[in-house]
C-alpha cells in the first residue's frame, strides 16, 4: 500500500496551486496531481518554459500571482514538502472504510517518452482531498459545429497561450460572456482577422452592473482594457446575435448569423460572414467526475451548470473532501485562488495546524464577494432559453457517437424517453469517448425542452457521472485489486474491452 499523505490536491490550476502551496506551508504533507506537464491550469496555461520567449506572457492577467505561487511550489518541492505529479490524471477515487481516500492515476499521454512511474505513484492514498478539477468550455450544438475549424473558445485560447498557434486566419468568436473578449483580442494580437464577436446577450452590461462593479472592481478595469483593444483592432462586437449555422464542405468557410430577442429567438434578417475559424464559448462547465464518484451533494448554479455544494470554508458534504475553483461554480481565476487558499487553511485548522482565524474569515469574505460577482455575471450572460429551437433534425448533438437532434426527438416521441437518463440509454448521446463532457449540458437541456420544462439536477447528473474520470489502459484497470474496486467501475469497463479491445 502506498504511504498515506495528509492531503492530495487534484488540479494545479489557480485553485489547486493555491491550495497545495497553502496546505504545505501550514505544515501538511501534500501531493499535487495534475493532467498537464506545467502547473497553471487553464487560466495560466503557458508555453513550455524550456522554450519560452520574452513575449509569451503579454496579455496574461495575474501572471505575477502565478509566478509567485509557482516559486513557492518549487521551494516546497525542493524541501520534500510537496510531491508534485504533473502529467498524470486521476481516473478513480474511492473512500476507504477507515476514512482515507485512494486515488488511481494514469499518464496523460501514453506515448510520453519518460518512463512510467513506480506503482507507489500510480496509486495515492490520503487522509483528505482538495479537489480542484476546474472545468471546460460549455457548448451548444448548432448546424455545422462539427466541421474542422470550429473550436471551443477556450481551445483557441489554449492553442494561442500554450502553443503560440493561431487556429485560423479569419475568425468569428461567438456565444456569450466576457470570455469571448480575451479570445478575440488574443487572436487579433496574433495577427488573425477577427471578423466579428457574436454575443447572444445584450451588452457589456456588467461594466455598469452595480453588484459586479463593487464586488470585483479590478474586473471592470480588465473589461475596459479589452474594450479598448477591440476598438484598436477594429473588431466588430455584435450583441443579441447568434450563429445559426456554420457553413462549409470539409472545413469552415462561413457562418450565418441572425439577430435574436432576449430568449434567443431569431428576429432579424440573416447574414453570412466568411471565416475559416469559429470559436464557440457559452461559459464553462465544471468538471464533476471526481466529486460525483465520492457522492458529494450537488446543485444547479445560476448559470444552469451542475456544481458541488460547499459550506463557507469549501467543505463538501463528504467528510474530508474539500472542493475549490470552478467545480463549486464558475467564477474565474481570482475567486479560484481565494477558494483554494481557504480550503487549505480550513483543512489545516481541522488537522490542528496553526491557521490564523482572521485570515480564514477574510478569505471567506473574499469568496462570498467573488460569488456575488459571478452570480451577477451569470445573470447578465445566460444561455438563451430558446436555444434548442436553433436545432434542425440532422444537427449533431453528440459528436462522439454522432447522435443527431432528430435521433433524440425520435427517442422521445417514439420510444417514450422522458428524461436525460433514458434518452442517453436509448439514443446513446454521451456514450462515446468524451463520456458526455461536450454534449451533457445540451442533452440535459434538450431532454427538458422536449418535456416542456426547465433542466433539473436529475437531467444533468446522469450526463456528468462517469464510472472512470478518464479512459485508462486496460492493463492499469486489470491491476486493480478487488477489495478497493467500487462495483460500478469494473462492471462497465472490464467486460467491454478484452486485452485488445475486443
Amino acid at each position: 500500500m502506498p504511504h498515506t499523505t495528509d492531503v492530495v490536491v487534484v488540479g494545479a490550476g489557480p485553485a489547486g496551486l493555491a491550495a497545495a502551496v497553502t496546505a504545505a506551508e501550514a505544515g501538511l504533507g501534500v501531493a499535487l496531481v495534475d493532467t498537464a506537464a506545467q502547473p497553471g491550469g487553464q487560466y495560466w496555461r503557458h508555453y513550455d518554459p524550456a522554450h519560452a520567449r520574452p513575449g509569451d506572457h503579454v496579455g496574461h492577467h495575474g501572471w505575477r500571482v502565478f509566478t509567485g505561487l509557482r516559486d513557492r511550489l518549487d521551494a516546497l518541492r525542493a524541501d520534500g514538502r510537496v510531491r508534485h505529479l504533473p502529467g498524470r490524471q486521476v481516473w478513480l477515487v474511492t473512500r476507504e472504510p477507515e476514512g482515507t481516500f485512494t486515488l488511481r492515476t494514469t499518464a496523460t499521454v501514453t506515448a510520453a517518452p519518460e518512463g512510467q512511474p513506480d506503482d507507489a505513484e500510480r496509486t495515492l492514498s490520503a487522509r483528505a482531498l482538495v479537489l480542484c478539477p476546474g472545468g471546460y468550455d460549455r457548448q451548444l450544438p448548432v448546424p455545422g459545429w462539427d466541421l474542422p475549424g470550429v473550436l471551443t473558445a477556450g481551445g483557441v485560447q489554449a492553442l494561442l497561450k500554450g502553443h503560440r498557434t493561431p487556429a485560423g486566419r479569419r475568425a468569428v468568436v461567438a456565444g456569450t460572456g466576457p470570455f469571448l473578449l480575451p479570445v478575440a483580442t488574443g487572436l487579433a494580437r496574433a495577427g488573425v482577422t477577427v471578423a466579428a464577436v457574436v454575443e447572444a446577450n445584450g451588452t457589456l452590461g456588467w461594466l455598469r452592473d452595480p453588484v459586479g462593479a463593487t464586488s470585483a472592481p479590478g474586473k471592470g478595469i480588465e473589461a475596459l482594457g479589452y474594450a479598448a483593444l477591440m476598438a484598436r483592432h477594429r473588431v466588430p462586437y455584435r450583441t443579441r446575435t447568434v450563429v445559426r449555422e456554420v457553413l462549409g464542405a470539409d472545413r469552415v468557410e462561413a457562418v450565418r448569423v441572425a439577430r435574436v430577442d432576449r430568449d434567443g429567438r431569431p428576429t432579424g434578417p440573416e447574414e453570412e460572414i466568411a471565416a475559416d475559424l469559429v470559436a464557440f464559448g457559452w461559459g464553462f462547465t465544471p468538471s464533476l467526475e471526481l466529486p460525483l464518484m465520492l457522492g458529494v451533494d450537488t446543485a444547479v448554479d445560476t448559470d444552469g451548470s451542475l456544481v458541488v455544494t460547499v459550506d463557507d470554508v469549501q467543505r463538501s458534504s463528504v467528510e474530508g473532501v474539500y472542493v475549490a475553483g470552478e467545480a463549486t461554480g464558475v467564477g474565474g481565476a481570482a475567486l479560484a485562488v481565494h477558494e483554494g487558499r481557504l480550503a487549505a487553511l480550513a483543512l489545516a485548522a481541522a488537522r490542528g495546524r496553526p491557521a490564523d482565524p482572521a485570515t480564514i474569515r477574510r478569505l471567506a469574505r473574499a469568496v462570498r464577494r467573488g460569488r456575488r460577482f459571478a452570480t451577477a455575471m451569470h445573470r447578465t450572460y445566460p444561455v438563451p432559453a430558446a436555444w434548442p429551437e436553433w436545432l434542425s433534425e440532422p444537427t449533431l448533438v453528440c459528436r462522439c457517437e454522432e447522435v443527431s437532434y432528430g435521433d433524440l426527438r425520435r427517442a422521445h416521441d417514439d420510444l417514450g424517453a422522458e428524461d436525460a437518463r433514458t434518452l442517453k440509454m436509448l439514443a446513446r448521446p454521451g456514450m462515446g469517448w468524451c463520456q458526455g463532457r461536450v454534449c451533457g449540458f445540451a442533452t440535459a437541456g434538450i431532454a427538458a425542452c422536449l418535456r416542456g420544462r426547465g433542466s433539473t439536477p436529475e437531467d444533468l447528473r446522469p450526463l456528468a457521472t462517469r464510472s472512470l474520470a478518464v479512459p485508462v489502459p486496460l492493463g492499469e484497470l486489470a491491476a486493480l485489486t478487488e477489495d478497493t474496486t467500487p462495483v460500478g467501475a469494473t462492471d462497465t469497463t472490464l467486460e467491454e474491452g478484452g486485452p485488445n479491445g475486443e
Partner: protein
Amino acid sequence: MTHRMTFRGVPVPAEPGQSVAAALIAAGIPAWRTTRRGGRPRGVFCGIGICFDCLITVDGVPDQRACLVAAADGMRLGDDGAGLDGTATGAGHDAARDREDSDAAHD
C-alpha cells in the same frame, strides 16, 4: 531547432514546445481522422484533452490526443499501427470500434 515530423508521409515542421495538434494546424492540416458513422473529418475541438475529437496514431501508438502530445523530432503521425493496449472509457463504449475511424485516411 525546428522538429521535423511526418503526417502520413508528408513533412510537418514543429516548434519545440508545440503540441502535435498545433503543429498540424500550423501546417494547414485542420483534420486528421474521419468519424465512424458519417465519415466526417475531425481535428481539434476542445484543445485541452476533453473531447477526444483529435485522436491520432503517434509512432504506432493509436488513440493519442493530438492536443496533449508534445511534438518531437522524427515523430510519425497518423500511420496505422497495431493497438498496443486496449483503452476503456467506462462509458459503455468499445474502444476498438473507434480505432478504425481514428486512423482512417482523411483526403
